[in-house]
């Protein structure tokens, strides 16, 4: 009888661990139900600045050292959106790359000067262990990104 009880507890724990590893929550719980297409946001970003949205896509890159940002593929080819979170509040694991994710966040606009962009891209390249050529940056840039508040990622 005692053995059966322990077996049930063990099975429940195993099931709990396995199911917990499927859709894993990062940060707060998602509050929105309806998703917005990333391509819709990027087609008319002004309409979404400051708005809270839920987007879905494949994680195509993650901050390798701190897990403080991720890049989410758009529903359209050659497009993606950056999701930035406050350092330490949410930490995206590198294993999230290639996995499906639901991200809730606020659309932000960032105006970056050429100098700031070179500095940021240099830092990014160093963190990611990638080569960097500053001569390729000739002007500043306007970036639209999500300030990530909550995420669900379909991990193994």
């Amino acid at each position, binding site marked *: 009888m005692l053995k059966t009880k322990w077996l049930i507890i063990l099975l429940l724990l195993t099931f709990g661990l396995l199911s917990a590893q499927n859709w894993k929550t990062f940060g707060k719980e998602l509050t929105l139900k309806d998703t917005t297409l990333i391509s819709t946001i990027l087609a008319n970003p002004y309409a979404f600045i400051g708005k809270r949205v839920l987007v879905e896509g*494949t994680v*195509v890159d993650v901050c390798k050292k701190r897990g403080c940002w991720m890049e989410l593929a758009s529903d359209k080819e050659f497009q993606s959106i950056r999701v930035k979170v406050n350092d330490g509040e949410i930490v995206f694991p590198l294993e999230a790359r290639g996995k499906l994710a639901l991200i809730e966040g606020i659309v932000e606009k960032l105006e970056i000067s050429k100098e700031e962009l070179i500095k940021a891209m240099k830092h990014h390249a160093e963190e990611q262990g990638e080569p960097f050529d500053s001569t390729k940056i000739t002007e500043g840039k306007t970036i639209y990104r999500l300030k990530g508040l909550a995420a669900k990622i379909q991990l193994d």
Partner: protein
Amino acid sequence: MKNLKWRKWNNILHRDLGYLAVGLTIIYSISGIAVNHVEDWNPNYKIRHIPVKTTFFDEAPVQVLVSKVLTKINIAEKPESYFRPSPQELHLFFKNKTLKLNIAQGTGEWEIVEKRPILYEFNYLHLNHAKKWWTYFADLYALILLFLAISGLFVLKGKNGLAGRGKWLTAIGIILPVIFLSV
């Protein structure tokens, strides 16, 4: 007599809570050193880059392109997903590795990611990636550390206690961060 009683309990609690804190202190201190140097290395993952050289690929629908790349590079494993950052690039995502290819040039690399054993788990706990109840457990641990610091001052009496050399060493420990902040 009264003095002896509080010191006795102070020492008993200092000893037993000290034993309880040993495990987490080892985890937090090792992880602390590891993440302190995050600018110089990746404390969680070991990342290897292996160059790939193949032939260029003609433009095609992405599924066709993926299939051609898998055949050409002789990859039996099915990718979990794929992404095209630009018309020249194709990224294939496998478990713990990514193939990044410039299809126009036929060059690229494998990026292989491995978790640093033990250190990854230590950092996970130390940086509180777990959140939820671990937050309260870590708070409790911090309170125990605080108690250990204060109770430690009163473990010994006499020339080796706080009244003797202890006051000088304690003062140095407090003054050093103050000097650092004011310089």
